[in-house]
């Protein structure tokens, strides 16, 4: 059990619109669903109707892409208010986002942009995480992003930045092992180093996904099945963070629900073997 007492929900799936009808009609035996929070903001209509119906039957976790915790713009309190409202509405078990920034000067790129891993940036993100968690009244889990560029002037590797941030801000970690793999390939580090540095008592969730290898670099496309080295990282991480829920993300060329579910359930076999 993690230090925050957040439950092991089992093996979950990212909730995608193409699967709404199947989920509502068939009620598949999925442990839980993770939503992209922003898909249910700035709406009063159909997306929320579907979400409400699904939340009646499954635990929901909220995963955001616009907290922009590393941005030097002021924290968007209206956004936080909307997050809090949505969390309360669907009784989300927790809220997560990414160690990144998405925009500055009031512009939002909607991309997860890399941070410079400096002491200045660390102090900045720690301060903002404390404010955001105070606002929500609960710990937020920050996910390690996939990155394609490393900013110059870094004084520490990403894993050290994330571990220190979690400690100083007393926040949780959503460890995405596919992102570890992608960034390790793109920046030439050993993914085991990343896992070795993680404070696993703060890891409340694991992500796994497919990616696209372009040879010169890997893109975190969330497409296709998960590759074996990423499954191996998942097993390793799960051993160290006993009782942590796992979630499969599949966001492009999304196949039938059963195919995505079957892929996610590979985690169960793998964890069984690992244990």
């Amino acid at each position: 059990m993690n230090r925050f007492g957040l439950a092991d929900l089992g093996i979950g799936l990212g909730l995608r619109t193409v699967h709404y009808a199947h989920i509502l009609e068939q009620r598949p035996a999925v442990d839980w669903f993770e939503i992209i929070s922003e898909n249910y903001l700035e709406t009063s209509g159909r997306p929320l109707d579907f979400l409400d119906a699904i939340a009646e039957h499954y635990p929901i976790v909220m995963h955001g892409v616009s907290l922009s915790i590393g941005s030097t713009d002021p924290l968007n309190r209206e956004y936080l208010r909307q997050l809090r409202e949505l969390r309360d509405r669907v009784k989300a078990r927790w809220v997560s986002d990414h160690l990144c920034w998405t925009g500055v000067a009031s512009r939002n790129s909607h991309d997860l942009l890399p941070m410079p891993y400096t002491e200045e940036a660390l102090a900045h993100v720690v301060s903002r995480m404390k404010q955001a968690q105070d606002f929500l009244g609960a710990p937020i889990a920050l996910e390690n992003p996939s990155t394609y560029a490393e900013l110059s002037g870094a004084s520490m590797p990403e894993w050290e930045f994330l571990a220190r941030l979690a400690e100083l801000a007393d926040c949780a970690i959503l460890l995405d092992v596919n992102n570890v793999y992608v960034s390790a390939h793109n920046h030439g580090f050993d993914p085991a180093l990343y896992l070795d540095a993680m404070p696993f008592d703060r890891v409340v969730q694991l992500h796994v996904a497919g990616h696209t290898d372009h040879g010169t670099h890997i893109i975190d496309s969330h497409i296709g099945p998960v590759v074996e080295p990423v499954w191996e990282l998942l097993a390793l991480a799960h051993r160290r963070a006993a009782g942590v829920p796992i979630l499969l993300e599949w966001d492009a060329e999304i196949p039938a629900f059963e195919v995505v579910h079957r892929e996610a359930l590979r985690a169960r076999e793998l964890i069984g073997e690992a244990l």
Partner: protein
Amino acid sequence: MKRESTTDALGLHERASATPEHAPANREARVGSAPGWASGELSLRSHQEWFLAVIMTPEHEPAPVDSTSAGRLVTPSSTLSSLARLEIYRRSYQARLIECLADDYPVLQATLGEETFEGLCRAYIDKHPSTEPSLNRFGRHMADFCRNHPFSEPDFAADLAALEWAVVLAIHAPTAPPLTAQDLARIPIESWPEIRLVPNPSLGVHAFDYPVNAYLSARRRGEAPALPVARHCSVAVYRTEQSVWRLELTPPMATLVESLSRGETLGGSLSLVAAQLDGVPEAEAAQNVTTWFSHAVSSGLFSGIRS
């Protein structure tokens, strides 16, 4: 007046945390001049302003950094230069937002063709960068933008975009149960002229210079109709439960629906319509107006009676 659902064909996709796939970006970015602030010690703020300026620069323009400046701010990898690494983010930025606009405007995309639509989107993204956490409203300026875009049929494209955006608005509007004939039957007949109706909260009545509703329907059926000549049409777009409907309105019916939606009394609204039926025998006019009103109610355009 045929009512058509757009639910099945609607490709409203979610946004995700994935990086969209695009053409491999291992080519050198075109090189522009180094910005003056890319020298000396950079604060976190300067880092971010610089990074965002680079990735938001349209692809047809040179990247606003040269390789020396890029190398100072982003380290190269063993396989990619600093500029090539930045280019991944620049292309992802455009690709993600183009995907979003394609979700909102599938028929506009099919009509213009991939290349023209993509060019339109790139220009749109440059003119209207997102300023909100959610992308649900990102495409809201498209109709106006089309009207001023240099392609061959800007007014038709603008009308088509406006209709597709009306569908998006109906999706995101609150859900309300429709007013029924039984609800109306509970009102004493003598009170009918004074009642005011509550419009379905998703209802929008839209006037177009081109018959875009018929065109959109043909496209949804998989046809490739010729671009129509200008002809006025009014369309009510609204949602009942999970279905979004497009209901083409005759001029008198548009008058009736608009008047009731504004909160005018039923009697006042019917008189307004009757005045438009100049030359139609009184009994026939009364019959028509009654039929139109029944049709508007049974179609789900209203959700209640004002107390």
